[in-house]
């Protein structure tokens, strides 16, 4: 077989100049040895993440929890949390982490505010008046949640970010029984120039003596049952909130704008739900509708010398091992018979030999046809 007979999948766009071969980036399950790196990443997250507290014991527990989940036989989603790290092999550093909660509300209820519109109509006055409310909801408790992503800022906007974010979908694609049919992603909400949440200032503040940051921290490290006890039980009328709070509803933190755009491109849509503390947006999608899941495919591995690999579009490539899950970026270089060509180093990285099948999905998302909101909002 000559090089000429090798073909890349046509029609895909380039994912940016930073991807060279791709063998230098690897997503894999977190291990005990990653603890210090996780702690650093949690501490550097912008803004701080509720579900990734920079708390050594919690992070240690998190890693152990993830390892247990990977070892167990799981037939349906439960209280598993899978934690991954992104390793830059060139630097020999852990530069990112991300998790999947198999069921958002498995241990506790996962509370969100659901945006609703009430219609008040008066026959007497012959008018109809719409009033918007936020209702405390646990509807999102059943979804599998992509969460706790933190990335070394030097990698922001690169294919490393994409790999870290979407490698989780490559994992989900292989173990559908471990996850819900619906996936969710919660983005940190808008903070003002002073780093304060206008939504919290108008809502949560009245109910807690702790500050937004304290509560966020507590929500991360402790049981969340306090939310049901302390937050208002009845729907909130939007017209009674401050204009600043209303403007923050469903608005993401500026540092996450790009990530949110990418998730919309992936096929997620904005749901009616927002975070109860900062009103950050919660996206959701039927798993089947996500681009990564609908565009990924199995290919047998063909190992070829590094220098004979054709220059095809970049792709995410994942092996078939649960606890030994590996996902990296390689070229979507297929032989005419559909084998994926990998360098010996890449094969080694993924722990695959020739003939083993790997899951491959293009790194660049195909054009979005219908990233609308499905009438949900």
């Amino acid at each position, binding site marked *: 077989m000559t090089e000429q007979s090798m073909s890349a999948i046509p029609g895909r766009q380039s994912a940016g100049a930073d991807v060279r071969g791709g063998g230098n980036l690897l997503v894999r399950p977190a291990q005990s040895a990653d603890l210090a790196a996780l702690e650093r990443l949690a501490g550097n997250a912008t803004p701080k993440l509720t579900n990734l507290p920079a708390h050594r014991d919690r992070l240690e527990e998190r890693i152990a929890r993830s390892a247990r989940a990977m070892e167990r036989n799981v037939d349906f989603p439960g209280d598993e949390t899978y934690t991954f790290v992104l390793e830059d092999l060139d630097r020999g550093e852990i530069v990112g982490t991300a998790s999947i909660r198999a069921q958002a509300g498995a241990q506790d209820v996962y509370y969100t505010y659901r945006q609703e519109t*009430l219609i*008040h*109509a*008066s*026959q*007497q*006055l012959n*008018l109809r*008046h719409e*009033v918007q*409310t936020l209702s405390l909801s646990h509807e999102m408790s059943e979804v599998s949640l992509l969460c706790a992503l933190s990335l070394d800022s030097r990698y922001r906007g690169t294919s490393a970010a994409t790999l870290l974010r979407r490698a989780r979908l490559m994992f989900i694609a292989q173990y559908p029984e471990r996850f819900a049919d619906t996936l969710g992603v919660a983005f940190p909400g808008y903070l003002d120039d002073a780093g304060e949440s206008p939504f919290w200032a*108008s*809502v949560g503040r*009245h*109910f*807690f*003596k*702790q500050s937004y940051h304290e509560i966020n921290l*507590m929500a991360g490290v*402790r*049981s969340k*049952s*306090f939310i049901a*006890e*302390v*937050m*208002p*039980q*009845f*729907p*909130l*009328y939007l*017209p*009674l*909130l401050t204009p600043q709070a209303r403007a923050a509803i469903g608005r993401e933190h500026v540092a996450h704008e790009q990530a949110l755009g990418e998730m919309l491109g992936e096929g997620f849509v904005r749901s009616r739900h927002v975070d109860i503390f900062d009103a950050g947006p919660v996206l959701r999608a039927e798993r089947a509708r996500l681009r990564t899941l609908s565009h990924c495919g199995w290919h047998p591995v063909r190992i070829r010398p590094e220098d004979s690999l054709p220059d095809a579009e970049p792709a995410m490539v994942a092996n078939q091992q649960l606890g030994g899950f590996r996902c990296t970026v390689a070229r979507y270089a297929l032989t005419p018979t559909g084998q994926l060509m990998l360098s010996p180093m890449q094969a080694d990285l993924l722990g695959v030999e020739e003939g083993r099948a790997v899951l491959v999905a293009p790194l660049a998302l195909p054009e979005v046809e219908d990233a609308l909101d499905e009438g949900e909002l």
Partner: protein
Amino acid sequence: MRLRPISHSDIDELQALAQETGVGFTSLPDSREFLVAKIDKAVAAFEGRVPAEERLYFFVLEDEESGELAGCCAIEAEVGRETPFYHYRVGKLAHSSVQLDLHRTIDTLFLSSDHTGDAEVASLFLRPAYRRDRNGTLLSKARWLFMAEFRDCFPAKVLAEMRGSFTPEGVSPFWECLGSHFFPMEFKQADQLTGLGQKSFIGELMPKYPIYTPFLPQAARECIGQVHEHTRPALEMLKKEGLRWEGYIDIFDGGPTVEAYIDDVRAIRHSQSAKVEVGDTHLPHAERHGWLAATTGMADFRCSWIGRGPDAEGVITLTPTEAERLSVSSGDTLRLLET
């Protein structure tokens, strides 16, 4: 001056009164048709032609010399029987968490019709020219004597709705911050519709879920249970009778509704019966009115100030003028209240 039930012949005078009451006195609009219906209803009530729970007793204060009407007041026997009667009730909800070492109660406004079936004293208006000689006290307290005399016609509780707090420009901060978001109209219009008893729009448009008061701006929160400065003397008078604010407020302006068990109202507890003896024209007469006297008939109820109290034997001696004013003669019974 004497207080008596309104009669059909009062219509012209009543309309003159209605023109004088002006804005904010929504129960007496300047509409002859409305007023005629109101008189009809009141006359039927005093004559006992409608069941006790449906009666609206409407009284006028009459200058028996000029024949002019000086003011009016009313008692509704049981509110909320024909149209819904709404309040916000300020309630407390506990928000506590052992885990957070947090325990607080949040004030919350609940839409309620708890006062359905209670009596209401309302519609008190006294023409400015007559705001002297304790005429206002007569108008206000005569109602307690009426209720004491016809106790069986009234339920356990009585209430009075007090006008809420407004800015000098006539704006209700409570309305601006709350009602205006749900009622796409001016305060005045909402208030007028309510005064006319056309209240179905309230049930239709009112927020159904409780309102957490911390979400209201301070200006609105400060209106909760506060009265209009002009209403303060009336509120004080009711408080002296034992009416208290138990957390119910007007849904539009946040003004307090004060209430009491009728049997606990001081004027009702302390009123006493006395036999009439019509005596000398030159009986001693206190300089300041101190005793109220009311007759014991419903349709021909009269109430006025008299110059003195009863003697130790429970006999009240009246001057011929006083007796005439009250339409009583020797041997009749009067209900008296020192005040």
